[in-house]
């Protein structure tokens, strides 16, 4: 198996039920594989379970049946603390609503996952964070508070934060869903750039067909099943 074909994320027969108000199966035998360097989008109608799938893949939701492998390691059934460590180290997140910490500056926001990981010194981390900001042309905003930025700027900072620990995979939950056309394009181009220049593995949930069309591969879901991948 070449480096290119190495599996990053592999789901095998994932079932997920919601129990309130009554038992309802939202994911039905979802299986797929994502290899290193792939830029994948997950599309589907509202309520088809794509966000639910993403939360399971992200290890935050542990209440499911089936097997999930990250980096060829089975992570289903691991302890919450271990999963938190994996999220910190191997997964980068971008949410629909940017979710920066308003109490901190842009630079600090980017550094926090790195500080948590604690692999490199603070100075080194600061340097790295600045580098990531440069990719997104946000370096002049480094010392602003997170809530002083526009929506598009915040989303770019959020992506920079997702990158700080050089994760195995970046997961996005409608990262452009809350942005206007112009900002949405900027953010999309940045994802594209990451995929092409840095060979970053990415899995983005979106309902924007234009966005999906620009990715390497589309996983389409309908009514809790994968219908195309």
């Amino acid at each position, binding site marked *: 198996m070449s480096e290119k074909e190495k599996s990053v994320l592999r789901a095998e027969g994932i079932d997920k039920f919601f129990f309130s108000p009554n038992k309802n199966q939202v994911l039905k035998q979802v299986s797929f594989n994502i290899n290193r360097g792939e830029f994948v989008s997950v599309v589907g109608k509202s309520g088809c379970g794509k966000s639910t799938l993403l939360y399971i893949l992200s290890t935050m939701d542990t209440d499911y049946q089936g097997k999930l492998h990250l980096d060829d390691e089975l992570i289903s059934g691991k302890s919450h603390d271990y999963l938190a460590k994996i999220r910190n180290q191997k997964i980068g997140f971008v949410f629909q609503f940017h979710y920066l*910490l308003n109490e901190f500056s842009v630079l600090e926001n980017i550094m926090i996952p790195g500080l*948590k990981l604690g692999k490199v010194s603070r100075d080194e981390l600061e340097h790295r964070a600045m580098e990531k900001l440069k990719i997104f042309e946000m370096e002049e905003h480094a010392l602003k508070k997170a809530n002083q930025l526009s929506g598009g700027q915040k989303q770019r900072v959020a992506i920079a934060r997702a990158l700080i620990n050089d994760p195995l995979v970046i997961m996005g939950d409608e990262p452009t869903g809350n942005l206007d056309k112009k900002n949405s394009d900027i953010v999309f181009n940045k994802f594209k750039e990451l995929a092409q220049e840095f060979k970053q593995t990415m899995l983005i949930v979106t309902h924007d067909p234009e966005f999906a069309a620009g990715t390497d591969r589309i996983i389409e879901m309908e009514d809790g099943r994968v219908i195309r991948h």
Partner: protein
Amino acid sequence: MKWSLIIELSKALMFARLKQTGVAAVGVMFSITMFVALLGFMNGLNAMLDGLVLNRTPHIRFYNEIKPNPNQPVDESPDFSNSLNFIRSIKPSTSRLAIHNAEKIIQTLESDSRVLGVSPKISSQVFFNVGTIDLTGVVNGIDVEKEAQLFAFTDYVTSGNYEDLNQTNTILLGKGLADRMLADIGDVIQVTTAQGNQVQLKVVGYYQSGLGDFDNANSFASITTTQKLLGESPSYITDIQVKLYDLDQAPPMARELEQIFEIDADDIQTVNAQFETGTNIRTLISYAVGITLLVVSGFGIYNILNMMIYEKLDTIAILKAIGFNSTDVNRIFITIALSIGVIGGGIGLILGFLTCLGIDQIPFETEALPTIKTFPIDYNPKYYLIGGSFSLITTYFAGFFPARKASGVDPVDIIRGK
């Protein structure tokens, strides 16, 4: 997990809600201030009131009690050893009030390592003759220097010089007694002893203990003067007063020495049990009030942290999403709670100390307490230690439940909820 990051995050969260955090800290500060001031003041008063009696009371007092001889001849006789003997109307034998071999006893006591000091005393009932009226009273013959050293005698001599007592035929009158006799310092008064001796004594000062009854009847003279007054030899001593290093040893020592010296001994605990009870209850009440204050401020912190957690659910969710585990989140909120405790408690201790200094300046003069000019305060570091540790304990528990709630936040719920 590095603590520096936890502290940084806690700090940011606290500064984001500076006003609430401040209010919580002020709550702790206020309760610690009150706690320290209350206990300092309460225990200052306690110490003063106890000192009023306990300072002047010997830890052990040896004396001869006048009582019937428990070994009556009929009991000693072999003829009646198997009978039940009834004897009516037994009178005390002509035993002496004086302690036999007092000098040797004093020497033995002084060489005992548990003993701080020994002071002999003669207690004698007298009449003070004022014109045609006789006032009953007591002349206490004391060793002036030792009395001053061991029983804070000088504190209660309100006017005149206590050292003048060393001159023969001088007397120091209780204030109440002097007032009744209209005796000024320098006046000569006449005293009649129970044996009928009449002696003229010069008044050299007044004594005011704060206990009116005591001051109305008691007076002091040197041992030599008293012996002369009673017409007794220089070995005549009725009481031996002992002060120990450790007050708690008084009861067993009294029992032990009673046997050895074959005289009666009273210990301070038995004689003054009610003072200890009073002190304990007052202390208990002040602790109860202080701790109530702290617990109330603990609820304040609990509320504020709960509010903060509701406001910061997003932050908690994002921290968890980017790899912080429950323990980290828990620690962040515990750190916030403890910081409020440390800052509020620290300032509270300082303000409490300043309040004590303030109370210490308030004039408090009463006739009954000649040595007290301002409110008494106890600056014992113990109260500061208890206040400080209690502020940490209450804030920890106030933070415990909110922190647990925060650590249980499910990030998916929050992120999905948007």
